[in-house]
């Protein structure tokens, strides 16, 4: 794939532009205004988008793509990993999505960050935010454009880092702006959970290297067919662990809802549209491996499907506008993972793209709602309608129980939100309909149990989105704040409109019969276009409409009033408590893993290492033992035996010397006599000898 024609050589700039942007902001950001910083960041991201478009154009002429070597990275023994950019239809698709949606969100963020509820006059926030955001774009680009698993991994961990930084962006607060470790906890949780996934990824990479002697995509795929089945199964399972971490699948999804602690643009960009779909991209990229093992496909599809329905049930029970969307994202990711797991790679990628559009739209609109609420709160506090009462309690602008009737206060946002909702619910002819349907159609053919689970999840999706819309925009305001909410400025709504348009028409990317996307991706992965299944489409549409009707029945016919418990609680009882509390998974994890590890660490650190090893063993055994030994040697041995021996020696010497002393009488002649004696003795000896 050494193709350097056209614009292929520009591909590294897809990373360099954002890096350039962040470096610029890092160095001169202090001197720039908020808009200046934002402009640089947007420009950087937009430049990346332009590069991506150029790549797409080049590909349309040379669909076989290219690999561009920038530098060698790790060359050890027979291990050779390079910084090589890969341009093919799959990677360019991802580039377009990431940089496109990314740029829109950058623009939105300029408006959003200006008045985020939690900024508390933090002046450095713009610089920090856009530096992180650009870094994220760069890392995401590394992820999607890498030519080997290891370069992909760099981006993989890199986006994890950005996720950590951005979730913990307001690191000294909790989500409501109170001083707390809560946000940083959420950030830490995300990073560590991701690391668990990375652990799986690493093992997969090790296995690939030792089996195939390379981690380069082409090299691996060239020989993977010769590998033994157990090797392939283990590699796919390890990859699945990685996917579960990054794309928030069971059992590692727990970090994503907490990740909503980040500013809303972050939730939209990272935790809905791009980063979390990296797992889907990874599986699609590894299609040649997954295709080889039916068991692997079965496992992946099942995990995806279970995640889809499990998260959907939780979404039903949430009150925070972003939390609902977060669980919805998990659920939709489950759809995608299930799709790519089944081998419906085109469908998975298709859903990935449309989901990026409408979920970003939803999140950003939700952000707009939250800001609108916040403006209302601000307005109230300033005009002092209700005295100091509101200053005492902390107001949560994201709580849907405080909303209601926002349709009138925020009409633009309302309509945008509606587009997103319908797209997500999967109603004809919005983007979500086409992509979701393709997944369901494939599942229907491949794995019926996955199909049924996913259909259930789709039903729930329509229901919780209906619930949300009714609660937020319809009925009467349940709080004074909602009554005073204000619409967002154009800089925020304009990108939303673009996204809304994409959500409406995104389905055109891969219409049945035309299969544009499938054909496009076929250049890279070996896939076949799925056929449109009218039966499946009808069932799901009917179910979605039914779900919306149900939600209308519950939440619209008799709109909620202030302080009223959720009507579902009456119907579902304990089950709803479970949904509300996320089925207590977090608590269970905390009890089973986190607390145990903390205890274990404490036990090791305090009891084993310090008390036992450092103090007891060192001080009592080694040191005291040594002291004891020296005492033993000093008293019984030294004084008792050695000393006595020397005493006896000394006495005998004393005694003998007292006698010998007499010899030293000072008479020269007696000395001479001794000498003479010696002479005689020696001569005598010589004679005898």
């Amino acid at each position, binding site marked *: 794939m050494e193709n350097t024609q056209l614009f292929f050589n520009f591909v590294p700039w897809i990373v360099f532009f954002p890096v350039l942007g962040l470096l610029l902001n890092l160095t001169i950001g202090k001197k720039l205004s908020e808009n200046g910083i934002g402009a640089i960041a947007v420009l950087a991201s937009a430049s990346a988008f332009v590069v991506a478009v150029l790549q797409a154009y080049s590909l349309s002429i040379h669909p076989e793509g290219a690999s561009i070597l920038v530098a060698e990275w790790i060359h050890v023994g027979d291990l050779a990993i390079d910084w090589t950019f890969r341009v093919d239809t799959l990677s360019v698709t991802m580039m377009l999505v990431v940089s496109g949606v990314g740029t829109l969100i950058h623009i939105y963020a300029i408006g959003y960050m200006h008045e985020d509820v939690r900024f508390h006059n933090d002046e450095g926030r713009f610089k920090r935010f856009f530096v992180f955001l650009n870094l994220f774009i760069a890392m995401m680009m590394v992820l999607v454009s890498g030519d080997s698993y290891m370069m992909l991994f760099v981006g993989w961990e890199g986006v994890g880092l950005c996720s950590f930084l951005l979730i913990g962006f307001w690191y000294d607060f909790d989500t409501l702006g109170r001083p707390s470790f809560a946000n940083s906890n959420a950030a830490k949780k995300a990073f560590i959970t991701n690391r668990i996934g990375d652990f799986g990824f690493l093992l997969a990479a090790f296995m690939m290297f030792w089996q195939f002697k390379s981690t380069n995509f082409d090299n691996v795929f060239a020989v993977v067919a010769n590998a033994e089945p157990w090797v392939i199964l283990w590699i796919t399972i390890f990859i699945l662990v990685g996917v579960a971490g990054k794309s928030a699948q069971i059992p590692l999804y727990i970090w994503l809802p907490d990740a909503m602690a980040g500013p809303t643009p972050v939730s939209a960009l990272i935790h809905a549209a791009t980063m979390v779909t990296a797992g889907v991209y990874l599986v699609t990229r590894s299609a040649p491996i997954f295709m080889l093992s039916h068991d692997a496909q079965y496992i992946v599809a099942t995990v995806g499907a279970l995640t889809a329905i499990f998260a959907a049930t939780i979404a039903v029970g949430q009150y925070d506008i972003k939390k609902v969307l977060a669980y919805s994202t998990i659920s939709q990711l489950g759809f995608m993972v299930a799709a790519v797991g089944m081998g419906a790679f085109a469908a998975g990628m298709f859903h990935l793209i449309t989901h990026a559009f409408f979920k970003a739209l939803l999140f950003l609109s939700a952000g707009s709602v939250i800001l609108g609420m916040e403006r209302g709160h601000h307005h109230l506090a300033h005009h002092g309608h209700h005295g100091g009462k509101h200053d005492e309690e902390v107001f949560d602008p994201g709580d849907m129980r405080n909303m209601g009737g926002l349709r009138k206060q925020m009409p633009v946002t309302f309509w945008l939100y509606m587009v997103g909702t319908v797209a997500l619910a999967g109603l004809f002819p919005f983007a979500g309909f086409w992509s979701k349907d393709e997944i369901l159609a494939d599942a229907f053919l491949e794995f019926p149990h996955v199909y049924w689970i996913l259909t259930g999840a789709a039903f729930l999706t329509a229901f919780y989105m209906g619930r949300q819309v009714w609660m937020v925009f319809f009925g009467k305001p349940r709080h004074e704040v909602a009554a005073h909410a204000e619409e967002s400025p154009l800089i925020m709504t304009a990108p939303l409109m673009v996204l809304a348009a994409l959500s409406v028409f995104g389905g055109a990317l891969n219409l049945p019969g035309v299969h544009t996307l499938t054909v496009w991706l076929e250049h890279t992965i070996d896939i076949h276009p799925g056929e449109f299944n009218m039966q499946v489409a009808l069932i799901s549409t009917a179910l979605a409409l039914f779900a919306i009707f149900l939600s209308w029945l519950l939440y619209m016919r008799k709109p909620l009033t202030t302080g009223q418990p959720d009507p579902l609680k009456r119907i579902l009882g304990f089950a709803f408590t479970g949904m509300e509390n996320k089925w207590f998974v977090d608590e269970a994890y905390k009890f089973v893993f986190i607390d145990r590890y903390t205890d274990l660490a404490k036990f090791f650190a305090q009891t084993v290492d310090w008390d036992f090893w450092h103090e007891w063993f060192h001080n009592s055994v080694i040191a005291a033992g040594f002291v004891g030994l020296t005492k033993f040697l000093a008293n019984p041995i030294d004084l008792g035996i050695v000393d006595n021996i020397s005493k006896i020696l000394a006495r005998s010497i004393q005694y003998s010397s007292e006698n010998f002393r007499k010899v030293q009488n000072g008479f020269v002649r007696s000395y001479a*006599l001794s000498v*003479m*004696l010696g*002479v*005689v003795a020696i*001569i*005598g000896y010589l*004679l005898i000898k």
Partner: protein
Amino acid sequence: MTGELFLFFILALTAVLTAVGMLTSRNAVYAALFLVLNFAVVAVFYLMLGSPFIALSQVTVYGGAIMVLFLFVIMLLGAENIKAEVTLKKMWPALVLSVTLLGLIIYMIVAKVPMVGLAAETSVADAAPKPLAVSLFSTYLLPFEITSFLLLVAMVGAIVLTKQEKKGAGK
């Protein structure tokens, strides 16, 4: 018994007797004189053994220099006599040892040394001092120089040791 042998015995007897005289005389001056006589006899032996240079050195160095020095010191100190000299009772270990030594070495000589006869005549070449001197100043130059240095040291030493310090001076 040839004349040569006869002469040897006479001389040997003289030597032993003078030695005994030296040992037994109470007066140190007598002892010194006996010793001079003894040295003279030994010098004759040297002559008989073909070493005229050594014999003359013996006479000059011992008889002339050393013994004069002895006598001079004896006179100087006035120490001719020492009271309560030797008693035989205290002497016996010394006697026993000396006799033992004598016996041992004589036994050695008898047992180990061959009975080689030595002529009393000397060839001129052997006895001439010249080759001796050549040897002394070539092969033995270094010892010779060291010895001369030794003599110098002894001289200086003797002077320093015996020099009378004036009272009060240097204290």
